[in-house]
């Protein structure tokens, strides 16, 4: 048979397309031609496949080999198709049997000696294969652990092309039991982290604020003088967030899979991630995109976790503005001429900033050296639409003062706080289920005001504040959301006056620096 085919998965962003790889061998001038919209790295597959095949003793015939990647309209990139191309060609050469390879997808990069190397994106690719109805997936041995995270498909690890040929020709078992211990049970990250809220000194207000943020999924800002411990607090936010569900964890792993180099072991880590990009980050690295194949940014790696922007106002304005879409929709869409990629990005934003460029504005007993215009320029880097979404604003006490005052450790430890958060989220989840959201922070303003308005008596002062122009409508909504979260934490059925009052103290303002 001079015509054969094998299947692989083309990834664009996180979504995979089944790529049918046809190989045809015909009696013409010897050549190896690859058609069907390959990019540069994929076009080089011809050389790798030719060398790999000949080095395992199945050199290509002196004929014309045409490999077609179909559908031709889908842009394809990377070396992940090498294995599938080799299989298709070997099947066309009748080295291996066409029917035996038909129900499987092949993923992996070939070395010239025929070894199969790890590639990024195996998890989403295998997921796509399963969804397309494939029963088996042959993946690089190094990526087997992540492929195994996908239930309902038989994933096999391949170390060498020769072994794969042996497997199909002679029915030799391909090893599938040597998966690393971590991937064996498929779950990691349940062990406790070194970080604990109890390690935080003298920040009772901020710790309380963190618990509220965790319980309601509220985005938060931490404002304080340099060195006051903003990062220390933010790092501990994931320790009080609930563990990810297996499903959420898979979504995160998929993002990690395509952003990895393929070498790192991707497991099912149930810990919410803490992603802290540096303030010099480009827009592409923060939001996603980049040259060539679209890659997920920090916002997607923080999916279901915490995105911490330290020195948030040192990020460039356009970079920060890129946060608007993911904050709004929980995802990022990267548009390209050839199509678009969608990455999930439902993260909890924690941003830390000094109150002004010198950091001393409003710090009692310190002098701010900044001019008023300098402060305005500084705080204006965060545009209104982003500030709008920051429900909680925490003032961070300079830690030196806290230690000097002999203040003890926080009375709250991560384990007990996490328990409170879990209970509050459960209460909120039950109440909000009918409205398609899980967390108070995700409740749209109109729904909030229509369905979740506490008694007028409770809101009287807040209404008055709005009427007097001391709060904006958005500020009002923020207070309402926070009041619900505070009520959830207290096990109260609906917010009481004290919850609204505390919400006002916690709420974020339209101006980051001053009230």
């Amino acid at each position, binding site marked *: 048979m001079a015509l054969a085919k094998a299947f692989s998965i083309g990834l664009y962003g996180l979504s995979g397309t089944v790529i049918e790889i046809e190989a045809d061998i015909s009696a013409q001038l010897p050549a190896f031609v690859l058609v069907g919209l390959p990019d540069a790295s994929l076009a080089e597959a011809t050389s790798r496949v030719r060398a790999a095949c000949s080095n395992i003793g199945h050199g290509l015939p002196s004929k014309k080999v045409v490999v077609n990647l179909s559908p031709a309209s889908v842009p394809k990139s990377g070396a992940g198709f090498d294995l599938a191309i080799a299989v298709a060609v070997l099947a066309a050469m009748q080295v291996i049997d066409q029917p035996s390879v038909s129900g499987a997808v092949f993923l992996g990069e070939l070395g010239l000696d025929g070894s199969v190397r790890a590639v990024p994106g195996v998890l989403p690719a295998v997921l796509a294969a399963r969804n397309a109805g494939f029963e088996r997936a042959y993946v690089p041995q190094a990526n087997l652990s992540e492929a195994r995270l996908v239930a309902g498909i038989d994933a096999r690890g391949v170390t060498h092309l020769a072994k794969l040929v042996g497997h199909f020709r002679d029915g030799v078992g391909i090893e599938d039991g040597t998966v690393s211990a971590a991937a064996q049970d498929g779950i990691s990250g349940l062990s406790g982290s070194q970080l604990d809220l109890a390690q935080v000194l*003298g920040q*009772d*207000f901020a710790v*309380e604020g963190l618990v509220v943020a965790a319980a309601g999924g509220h985005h938060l800002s931490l*404002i*304080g*003088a340099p060195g006051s411990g903003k990062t220390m607090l933010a790092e501990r936010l994931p320790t009080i967030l609930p563990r990810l569900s297996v499903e959420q964890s898979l979504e995160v792993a998929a993002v990690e899979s395509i952003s990895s180099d393929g070498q790192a072991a991707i497991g099912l880590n149930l810990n919410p991630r803490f992603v802290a990009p540096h303030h010099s980050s480009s827009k592409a690295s923060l939001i996603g995109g980049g040259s060539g194949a679209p890659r997920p940014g920090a916002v997607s790696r923080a999916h279901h976790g915490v995105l911490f922007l330290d020195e948030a106002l040192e990020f460039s304005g356009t970079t920060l503005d890129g946060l608007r879409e993911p904050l709004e929709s929980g995802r990022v869409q990267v548009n390209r001429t050839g199509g678009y990629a969608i990455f999930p990005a439902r993260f909890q934003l924690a941003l830390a900033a000094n*109150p002004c460029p010198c950091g001393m*504005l*409003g*710090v*009692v007993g310190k002098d701010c050296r900044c001019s008023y215009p300098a402060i305005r320029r500084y705080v204006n880097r965060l545009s209104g639409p982003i500030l709008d979404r920051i429900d909680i604003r925490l*003032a*961070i*006490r300079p830690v030196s003062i806290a230690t000097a005052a002999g203040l003890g450790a926080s009375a709250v430890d991560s384990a007990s706080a996490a328990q409170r958060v879990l209970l509050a989220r459960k209460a909120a989840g039950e109440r909000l289920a009918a409205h398609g959201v899980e967390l108070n922070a995700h409740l749209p303003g109109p729904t909030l005001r229509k369905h979740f308005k506490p008694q007028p008596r409770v809101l009287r*002062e*807040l209404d*008055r*504040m709005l009427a*007097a122009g*001391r709060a904006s409508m958005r500020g009002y909504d923020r207070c309402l959301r926070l009041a619900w979260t505070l009520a959830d934490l207290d096990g109260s059925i609906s917010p009481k006056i*004290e919850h*609204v*009052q*505390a*919400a*006002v*103290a*916690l709420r974020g*303002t339209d101006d980051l*620096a*001053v*009230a």
Partner: protein
Amino acid sequence: MRLTKREFDDYLRPLLPEADLEIEPDRAFALAAFSFLTEPSDLLPQFLSEWLTPEALLDLVIDRADAQALAATLPAQALEAVEDKLGDGLGVIWGNALERWTPRLNRKSLLDSLAWMVSGASGLSQPHRLVFQGSDSYPLGLDDLNTHRPGVLWCIGQSRLLAAETALAVVGTRQASRYGSSVAADIAAVAAQAGVVTVSGGAYGIDAIVHQSAVQLEAPTIAFMAGGLGHLYPRGNLSMLHAIASAGLLVSEVAPFVTPAKWRFLMRNRLIAATAAATVVVEAGKTSGALNTGRTAVGLGREVAVVPGNIDSARSIGCHQFLNEFPGDVKLLARPQDVLKLLGAGVPDALTVKGLGALESRALDTFGLTAIEAWEVQRLAGLTTRETQIALGSLEMQGLVERLGTGYRRVLLEGG
């Protein structure tokens, strides 16, 4: 010479503040006449007013009565007091006084001045008023000047400001530095927020900054003019002075067409010092007129403070010397907010709030005039974290505190 009923209705009644309509017409006319006849430094009319009504004295002047005629109207202790206090016999004093006054004795000119006030020829639409000594609108503080008090104040604007209980004088050099300007503006803002009337001289520099800040903050401010209201000076500040007339008050103790001559400035300063309960000298060179105001205020027993400056700043030398000149009497203003302490107001009335819950009251009591952080409130009030949050949230909702940086500060006037 006295006004007919009709003349009174035409020339004087329209100039009387509502509270003062009961005033004796003859007395009012006589006081107006003396402000026309005499220089501000001339204390004789006020000195004699203890025994002799202004209208009787005016009659004597018009009659060019001799000293015997005057003496006949005075009791014996008055004659002693004249010798005692004025250092000369009544004959000499009266002779000199007549020599000074009679050349200005011109009924028509006086009526023209009054007519100028009534007609609105000044071009300003605000009320034009005459506030007479002894009337309800007359500033209490000016009575402390005794015989140096003016018999009448010529006003354009809100003359009721003169009766304000606490006024703060802020004075300083005309060549204000950037530092002085910003401090003056801060002080004016603190006063504005606390509802305190600011008083100054309408001159360039510190005076102008104080008035302007008040005008911008729509807070009351009073400018005492050295010349008559028909000669607003300095001309460069004209638009600001007009703005003061609408937001506050322009005052002069001399008739409208009296020119702002040099000696009149020094006399004017005593009015600023006496009207205000406290005087702050922001910046003053070695010989600045602001120091004259300050010294007068010290002499009157008013609260006086100076703003410290650089040791090598020529514009602060006067302040520093002044501070050393009256140790104890002159204080150093460490922060702009301290002017409220100076006024003895401590915390203005607007700050006493009724109907607050226990948590809120405890939290609110921890606030001074500067911003403090939530954890400081917690520490000082002895509340839990949650209670502090509740209290601060409630106070913020009620507009009693507001956020500043990472902390909170008290809002001095609701909505202000």
